[in-house]
């Protein structure tokens, strides 16, 4: 079996918590921290850690503002994040095709 696609998988995105965050953000222009936390049933601390890791890689942009006088944190994918996510999906599809042809 060709291990190349597996070895090329982006380790930052491949972690389960970060993968689900990237998936949610890929389908929306932006999502609030609360929406992500509630939909993914993550704790504040867990979500913050994952988002910080994605932010450091330049995959996610975080914006802070106010809504009804309350702080609002929104996250969105950067261009680099979209590219990395698309590449990750392509590699997964390659692996699936490889598995099927076995």
């Amino acid at each position, binding site marked *: 079996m060709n291990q190349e696609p*597996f070895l090329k998988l982006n380790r930052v995105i*491949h*972690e*389960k918590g970060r*993968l*689900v965050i990237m*998936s*949610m*953000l*890929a*389908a*929306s*222009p932006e*999502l*609030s921290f609360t*929406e992500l936390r*509630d*939909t993914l049933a993550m704790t504040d601390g867990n979500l913050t850690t994952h988002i910080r890791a994605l932010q450091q890689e330049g995959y996610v942009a975080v914006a802070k503002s106010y809504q009804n006088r309350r702080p609002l944190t929104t996250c969105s994918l950067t261009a680099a994040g979209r590219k990395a996510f698309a590449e990750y*999906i392509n590699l*997964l*599809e390659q*692996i*699936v095709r490889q*598995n099927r042809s076995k």
Partner: protein
Amino acid sequence: MQSSHMNPNWAEENLQTIRTLMERSAMYRHALAPIMLFAGVLGALAAGGGIVFHLDSTRAFGALWLGAALVAVAGAFFIVRRQALKDNEPFWSPPTRRVTLALLPPLTAGMILGVVFTWFPTAGVVDFTLLLPFLWALFYGCALHAAGFFMPRGVKWFGWIYIGLACGVLCLLVTIQPQIQISAHWLMGFFFGVLHLAYGAYLYLTEKGKNAV
């Protein structure tokens, strides 16, 4: 996740998880085609009823179409709710809330103007019966465009079609052919019957194609 690689199908499962999350995040895509078809059938029936029963006075016209709009909204919510139950998802989810909030301002404006123009028609100044289809189509197009930021890309384009057609046909009537007599029910039938049916059929066929792959 490393341990999941013991399962030979881990890549497929990951893809399925990604697909499910993206769909959940992007509103109930599968509900869109039945909503459009339902609205189209309702629009065509209302237009047919208005023409056959000669509901031509401004008040009768307004009552018929505002009633049809309320039924359409109720039906759309029913279809989305049914889809949410089927997919085992919460009905009032963040995406549903965002889409509803985006739709609300233009639709409310259209409804308020519709009620005011219908119940207080200023005879002799402007024929509100003929103006309302264009106003409603414009507001509806703006509502679809706003909701399109949280829905499949086609919804935005569908909104632009309403805005373009409403502006274009109204400008044409006002500037080039002011003498043309068009029934307001025919206009409504086109805007809210034919266009919805066409988009619903397109969605239905393309969604079917995607599911088949």
